[in-house]
């Protein structure tokens, strides 16, 4: 795979992660348990949408076929999306959505930090902007995980179940394929093994403070990066893409 093709594919992966997580969060708007969380969730979703837009715009320029950010978001099918499986999992209850975001942000913050030192200038700039936002998201999620885990017996048990369920989707974050390898080798991009160590350390410390148990690493689901998704993504895209599919080119 050429250097340029790898950077394009990688940029789309990053963009898809941000967009799909944002869409899940958007589904929760007006359904959060309290006003403060309502604002936090909507504001965080906005950050991810902003990141997705910058990344899709860059992907369009790299590809050079005139595709816009909207074309990437609304006119591609499931198998063309390369987001992590974790991010397309349904919102479930508050604890499920929280754990999903916590596990991802703990990874994403180190990933972005590594990208700020890569040799691709545009990715570096986008990552430098985004990492500050994600640090803040992670702090917020970590505080909530501690509140729920170290809260009542009910909240503890429910969030432990969320963690046990989501864990099977964490392996994929660190399972590098040829694109991850090309990014690491050709543009001094993230070293997933090193990030796995940093992630594990951060997650262990918050999980311990939350009095939760770290699940065992057993079977891990994978395939999202290569476009093989769980059934959830189809429902998500059906809703997200409805307008552009029914009325192509609609603007307001």
């Amino acid at each position, binding site marked *: 795979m050429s250097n340029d093709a790898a950077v394009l594919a990688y940029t789309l992966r990053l963009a898809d992660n941000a967009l799909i997580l944002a869409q899940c969060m958007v589904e929760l708007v007006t359904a959060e348990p309290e006003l403060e969380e309502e604002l936090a969730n909507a*504001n965080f*979703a906005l950050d*991810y949408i*902003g990141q997705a837009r*910058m990344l899709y715009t860059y992907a369009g320029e790299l590809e050079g076929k005139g595709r816009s950010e909207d074309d990437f978001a609304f006119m591609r099918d499931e198998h063309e999306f390369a987001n992590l499986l974790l991010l397309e999992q349904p919102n479930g209850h508050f604890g499920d959505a929280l754990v999903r975001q916590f596990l991802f942000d703990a990874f994403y913050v180190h990933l972005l930090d590594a990208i700020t030192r890569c040799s691709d200038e545009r990715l570096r700039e986008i990552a430098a902007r985004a990492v500050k*936002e994600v640090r803040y998201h992670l702090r917020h999620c970590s505080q909530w995980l501690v509140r729920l885990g170290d809260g009542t017996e009910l909240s503890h048990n429910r969030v432990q179940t969320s963690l046990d369920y989501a864990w099977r989707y964490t392996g994929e974050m660190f399972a590098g394929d040829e694109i991850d390898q090309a990014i690491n080798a050709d543009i001094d991009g993230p070293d997933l093994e090193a990030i796995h160590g940093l992630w594990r350390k951060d997650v262990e410390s918050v999980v311990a403070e939350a009095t939760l148990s770290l699940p065992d690493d057993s079977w891990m689901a994978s395939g999202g990066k290569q476009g093989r998704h769980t059934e959830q993504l189809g429902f998500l895209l059906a809703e997200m893409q409805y307008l552009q599919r029914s009325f192509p080119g609609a603007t307001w």
Partner: protein
Amino acid sequence: MVAADLSREQVLEWLAKVPDPEIPVLSILDLGIVRDIDMNDGVTVSLTPTYSGCPATEVIESSVLRELRQRGLDDIAVKRVLSPPWTSDWISEAGREKMRRYGIAPPSANKPVACPQCRSTETERVSEFGSTACKAAYRCRDCLEPFEYFKCL
């Protein structure tokens, strides 16, 4: 008007009239998001977004174009620059004072947050999230007024 007759100071003076849509007492200059004015080939204003998802970014870009067009310029463009990323440290002193008078406590990195009404530092955070991503909700323990605090970023 052609760009050759135009001074940078004049462009700055015009940009000082473009408000931030979310805190309209602040101009985009007060906010520190105007990174460069290039007058070599027409006028190109470089702007940096505050947050990746800041919904004001596009409004600001079109306001800048409208303001300059109204002044008779036609060879104009705005450029979005991401690097270095915007930080709340770039909000000017004048901008901080305008925020205070508007009722928003400006970002304070190493000092306690002071109430914009009575200046007391006996304040408490009510919620880390306010009406926009960049603000938190606070309350003053002395004058008991609620207020917004512009977070450090």
